């Protein structure tokens, strides 16, 4: 039993079901990120935890107290909204203490809490300003401050960084992470940005079309995706998915591929149980960083396989160079060191780290677990 329990929760608007059987137990101090494409139901689930949306069926408990039907202000939660939702007519200070005032906290205590949080977030000098006089980043801090002042059991964040520019977003991300490590509060955080999900979370719930596709640590989600959706949604550039046939060489399973010129290429598969798939199609998943030049390959891996193919395009991106090749008719992206000697149009010896390769059942799109 967790600190925040979401058990068998569903949500319907009329006859449309937008959340199906969601089951998540969040431990105290955890940073849970709900991630998924637009419209998958992340905000709906968050709003249900906050009490802003009703629960169609199932139960949400915080500290073992059933929250169904409990008013948002009585759940001891605080929420940071995407638009920040600062009250335009109040000063920053009034914004931050409005909740305490509504809960009947006496003025001296409110002022003390305000001073503490303002110092923590370095917004002491802004307290007398109106939200309209703040920059985007400052508004973001104030919105977080308003949540922190309440000292709630659970923090809820709905895409808090999506209105910031790229640089500020990275800074605030680090700041939120630091804040979490310092305060050890329980956080549920919604985003559609998979990088944010991977960097911030202690656990991730990947959602799609109202279903939780996978719940796990960032490493589990990244290295052992439960299905094709999770594999391609998490990671940038996306994981390469190559349709291939399993063939046996001796008794070892190999992936049968063809290079850009149509020559047959065999890649030895690490996963022994794929022998059962001999003669059948699978979807082979290889992340871009698992395909490199031979010098850049992971030295700790015991399964670096050579692969010779023609380079289609190279895209230098500062620290990395992305190299595209055609494999079995699919464009496959490799991620190399910036100084790897690759040239478009020429044949190149790629090194593939097959330890990191995963296989999916083309019918169910579920991962074929080792």
């Amino acid at each position: 039993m967790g600190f925040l329990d979401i058990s068998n929760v569903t949500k319907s608007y009329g006859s449309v079901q937008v959340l199906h059987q969601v089951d998540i137990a969040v431990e105290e101090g955890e940073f849970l990120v709900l991630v998924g494409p637009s419209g998958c139901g992340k905000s709906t689930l968050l709003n249900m935890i906050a009490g802003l949306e009703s629960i169609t069926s199932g139960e949400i408990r915080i500290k073992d107290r059933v929250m169904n039907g409990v008013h948002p202000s009585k759940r001891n939660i605080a929420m940071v909204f995407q638009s920040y939702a600062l009250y335009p007519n109040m000063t920053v200070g009034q914004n931050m203490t409005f909740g305490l005032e509504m809960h009947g906290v006496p003025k001296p205590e409110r002022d003390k809490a305000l001073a503490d949080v303002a110092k923590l977030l370095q917004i002491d000098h802004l307290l007398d300003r109106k939200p309209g006089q703040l920059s985007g980043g400052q508004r973001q801090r104030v919105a977080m401050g308003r949540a922190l002042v309440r000292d709630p059991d659970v923090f809820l964040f709905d895409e808090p960084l999506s209105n910031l520019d790229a640089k500020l977003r990275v800074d605030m991300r680090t700041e939120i992470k630091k804040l979490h490590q310092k305060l050890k509060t329980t956080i549920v955080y919604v985003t559609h940005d998979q990088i944010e999900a991977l960097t911030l979370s202690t656990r991730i719930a990947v959602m799609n079309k109202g279903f939780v596709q996978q719940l796990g640590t960032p490493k589990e989600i990244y290295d052992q995706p439960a299905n094709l959706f999770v594999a391609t949604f998490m990671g940038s550039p996306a994981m390469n998915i190559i349709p291939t046939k399993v063939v046996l060489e001796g008794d070892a399973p190999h992936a049968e591929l063809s290079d850009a010129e149509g020559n047959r290429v065999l890649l030895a598969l690490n996963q022994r149980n794929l022998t059962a798939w001999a003669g059948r199609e699978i979807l082979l998943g290889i992340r871009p960083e698992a395909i490199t030049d031979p010098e850049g390959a992971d030295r700790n891996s015991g399964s670096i396989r050579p692969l010779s193919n023609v380079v289609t395009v190279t895209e230098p991106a500062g620290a990395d160079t992305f190299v595209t090749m055609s494999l079995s008719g699919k464009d496959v992206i490799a991620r190399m060191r910036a100084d790897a000697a690759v040239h478009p149009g020429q044949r190149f010896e790629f090194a593939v780290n097959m330890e990191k390769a995963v296989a999916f059942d083309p019918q169910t799109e579920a991962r074929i677990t080792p």
Partner: protein
Amino acid sequence: MSAVTQDTSVSTGRVTRAFIYLVLILFALFYLLPLYVMVVNSLKPLPEITGGNMMALPREWTLEAWGSAWSTAQIGVSPTGLKPYFLNSIMMVVPAVALSTMIGAMNGYILTKWRFRGDVWVFGLMLFSCFIPFQIVLIPMARVLGMLGLAGSVPGLILVHLVYGIGFSTLYFRNYYAAFPTELVRAAQIDGAGFFRIFWRILLPVSGPIAVVTIIWQFTNIWNDFLFGASFGGVNQPMTVALNNLVQSSTGVKEYNVHFAGAILAALPTLFVYIVAGRYFVRGLMAGSVKG
């Protein structure tokens, strides 16, 4: 707002500009002409009007006509001047405007932030009330006022104007609040503010522009109304009806200077409201459409 008003004009040449000013000044003069005639003639003794030129300035300036219109002129059967009727109008218009604005604001708040099943229908019906001609409701309204014991009284008139005004004030506030972010209401709910507290502390403080629009609109309509006043005013008739009685009286000489003074008196309050709040009026009307 400044960002909106900037750069909305195209640059023009000098000749064009002079032409535009000329046309504008001519129109302004044209519109000011009636006011000029009224003011000038209200300041003349009667013989100067009947025997002279309407456009001429007074040879003998006098406020006599104003005094007469305000306190001694014959209205109907008694020589009371317009004063008591002016007070009737004030006692009618202030509560009617205040109440219809408050209720409209509350309706707009509920219709946008506390949606309920069928709210679109409720709003549609309220909108519909804006299009019902006054004449249609005269007889049912008379009956209702009679049953309530409010016939021929100022409270009765307040009720009539309140009922008629709510449709418009609801429309204004609903459209204004529709653009108000619902996330703010949700944040306030989490903060622990209830229905009235959210309205009072979060929405009302930012409702200035639309409140001004509504107040001007209601004030002008209710102050200028004649039909309801004549039908339901009884002995407590408003200014408009009294002015009519003054001007239309068939006995004695027609005191045109008194009529002019009375007409200006009747128009002053709306003029005052426009001058004080007029610039917010345009701003408020623009707010919803430009800010989006």
